[in-house]
């Protein structure tokens, strides 16, 4: 009964692709009927790194994650995970990865511990071993006291932590997290980040999707920005900021009656001091290497903004520049 080949690591299971990438994708495409969810994307994830997919809702992040997780077959292109083809070795790959899905799939009426033990059984762990790991993981995510509680009354943050604990029951070398902290309060998010950081330090490769820039900056060594099914940029958070934004941003707020009259004026008077000026309904953003100098120039020209603020460029500036400001639903 336990002779099922899926639970044994055949020679293929250890074979790495030549590039020693944990995940290797070229021209990876996913279509649902006429709709293209993922459009010929290329990326590689190296062992031990934390890799992020950033993008607005509907950009194709989850479809990509589901293909990596070997639950959704690709339409076209090349994909190897842990050196293996998902179409052929799906169960073998899934045996070695952990998955934190976007929506929890916990069994609400089972106890917290039973949720972990039964999930361990899916990986063919002996019952005693599954229980041992469950207790260890409950400690790791600070849920030991709730072990005998059912899942249903737990807070959102606790459920998320339980889902992460569950994803670790098979001691995966690769952990896939689809929007791990969406909908959580700041305390819960920071606790989760801390736990993910510890996993990374232990050598677990993390692949996550998020639309929180601070999360991407906190966790990711490298990330790609997805928009409309394609990858539009990639690199470390620092590289992306350097490439797609200025060093600093000057945020100016004007009384609404003079905003109209500023058309073109700011660009002129900031000539050479600003890389780009962006007008939003409520404020003007001046992307500049030296934000303070730009602010001085604005005041010297006799303009009196209601407020002005100089800050460093963030990943959010990159994100909005690359994916636009219009709401995508």
């Amino acid at each position: 009964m336990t002779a099922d080949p899926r639970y044994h690591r055949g020679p293929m299971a250890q074979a790495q692709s030549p590039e020693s990438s944990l995940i290797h994708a070229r021209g990876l495409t996913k279509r649902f009927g006429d709709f293209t969810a993922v459009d010929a994307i290329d990326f590689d994830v190296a062992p031990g790194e934390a890799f992020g997919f950033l993008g607005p809702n509907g950009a194709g992040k989850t479809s990509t994650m589901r293909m990596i997780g070997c639950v959704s077959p690709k339409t076209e292109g090349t994909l190897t995970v842990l050196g293996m083809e998902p179409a052929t070795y799906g169960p073998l790959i899934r045996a070695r990865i952990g998955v934190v899905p976007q929506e929890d799939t916990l069994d609400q009426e089972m106890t917290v511990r039973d949720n972990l033990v039964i999930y361990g059984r899916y990986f063919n762990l002996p019952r005693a071993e599954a229980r041992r790991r469950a207790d260890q993981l409950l400690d790791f995510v600070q849920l030991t006291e709730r072990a005998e509680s059912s899942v249903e009354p737990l807070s959102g943050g606790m459920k998320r932590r339980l889902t992460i604990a569950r994803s670790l029951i098979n001691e995966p070398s690769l952990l896939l997290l689809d929007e791990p902290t969406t909908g959580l309060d700041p305390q819960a998010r920071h606790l989760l980040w801390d736990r993910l950081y510890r996993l990374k330090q232990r050598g677990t490769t993390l692949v996550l999707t998020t639309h929180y820039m601070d999360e991407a900056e906190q966790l990711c060594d490298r990330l790609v920005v997805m928009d409309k099914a394609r990858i539009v940029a990639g690199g470390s958070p620092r590289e992306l900021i350097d490439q797609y934004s200025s060093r600093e941003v000057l945020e100016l707020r004007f009384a609404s009656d003079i905003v109209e009259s500023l058309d073109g004026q700011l660009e002129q008077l900031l000539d050479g001091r600003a890389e780009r000026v962006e007008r939003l309904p409520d404020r003007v953003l001046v992307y500049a290497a030296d934000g303070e100098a730009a602010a001085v120039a604005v005041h010297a020209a006799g303009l009196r903004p209601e407020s002005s603020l100089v800050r460093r460029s963030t990943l959010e500036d990159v994100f909005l520049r690359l994916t636009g400001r219009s709401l995508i639903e």
Partner: protein
Amino acid sequence: MTAPAVHVFEHRLVSYRRTFRGSLFSSFLQPALFLTAMGVGLGALVNRPGNAALGGVSYLVFLAPGLLAGTAMQTAAFESTFPVMAAIRWVRSYVAMLATPIGVNDIVIGQLAWIAVRLTMVATIFVAIMTLFGATHSPAILLAIPVAVLTGMAFSAPIAAFSATQENAEGFNMLFRFVINPLFLFSGTFFPVGQLPALLQPIAYVTPLYHGVALARQLSLGTGTVSEAILHGGVLVAFVVVGVVACLITFRQRLVK
């Protein structure tokens, strides 16, 4: 069963632990109530010397095996609808399983195996109650337990396949109202199919419950021929086989996208 399918089965078992007290209790209560009301109570009015339509036995003895098969059908229909929908959509246990080495075929096999075990529990309790009521004439009644399980599975497999195509529980209400309840009443459970209008009789013959009832009754009364039994059993097996194949298709369509 493959190892992953065993773990799917295990999940259903762990889930069942929560509700098994109530579930076991009603497995005892249901047949006891029915056999008392219909078999003993109504039976007193039906029993007349030389009632040939019932094959010369008391109404209780006639009714009990039919009710056994009918109960197996109802249990099977319930276990193959709401729990399957829950595992696909509401609790999403199948979705969780598919992120692990477990595959769609394992889910189908494990789920149906669990339903078969549930049916065995229900049928065994039913036969025990029947025996207590003196509602059987033959030790072959023990064979009516696997027959009841087979009857249940002849419904379970196709219904589970149907459940995997549904978006919500509305279709289930239709299924119970227009398929399960009429079959329960008109498949020879409470009266011989021969009493039905001639036009309706062929419909009864193509439904699995008619064959389940007939086979269970043969075993309980110790009557009928082997070739009849093979025919009834063959129809039931055919429904199971077609249903399992349908499950493998619809579960995959639903769960792998």
